[in-house]
């Protein structure tokens, strides 16, 4: 199982804070997870298909090439704007 979380604009657009997905061997990295989510339809593609999307694995910033393991905590979010 992998846990997914969405933040800020993405959370609002998707109307979803997070969800769990069964882990599959084909989900080798975060890019594969994003592709799976984007294939759900136009809303998902418009939201998570953004070029400047940021992501984190187990609460650490990472790239879409980051390998994925069963039990991981994944987050997708727009560029951060704190400070």
């Amino acid at each position: 199982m992998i846990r997914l979380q969405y933040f800020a604009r993405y959370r609002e657009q998707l109307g979803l804070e997070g969800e769990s997905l069964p882990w599959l061997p084909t989900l080798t990295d975060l890019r594969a997870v994003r592709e799976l989510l984007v294939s759900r339809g136009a809303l998902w593609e418009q939201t998570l298909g953004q070029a400047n999307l940021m992501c984190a694995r187990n609460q650490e910033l990472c790239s879409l090439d980051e390998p994925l393991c069963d039990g991981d905590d994944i987050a997708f979010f727009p560029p951060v704007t704190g400070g």
Partner: protein
Amino acid sequence: MAITVQHKALDCNRQIEALRARARGLGALVSFTGYVRDLGLTTTGVSELFLEHYPGMTEKSLEAIVAAARQRWQLLDVEVVHRVGSIAAGEPIVLVGVASLHRQEAFEACACIMDQLKTCAPFWKREQSRDGARWVDARESDAQAAARWL
């Protein structure tokens, strides 16, 4: 070092004094305070800012930013306080304080920590105005500012 993410209002003087008291033997203390800009009040009617964050990751991310600064510069102590939730125009959002023996380390480390915080720590600003809410866009200049420390 002290890292705090809080809903309540920032008491900047108290935080800086706490840092000064912890940093025994200090010769320099540099601090930066970021405020909700009041500028927009008349033009866009921004009445309030809402700060969303990713609990858990936010604290870890700030700790990593400060740890990296302490590797790079010789610092006595660091204080980072960031507000989340609803914040009124004119109120402080963030405080970064750095204590060291000499001023140069404190100036540079404070700027570096702020630049990294703006581009790496999971916070998102949403402006609330008469016309509704709007998520603030990230700025390319912030990414450039952070890149100069690489």
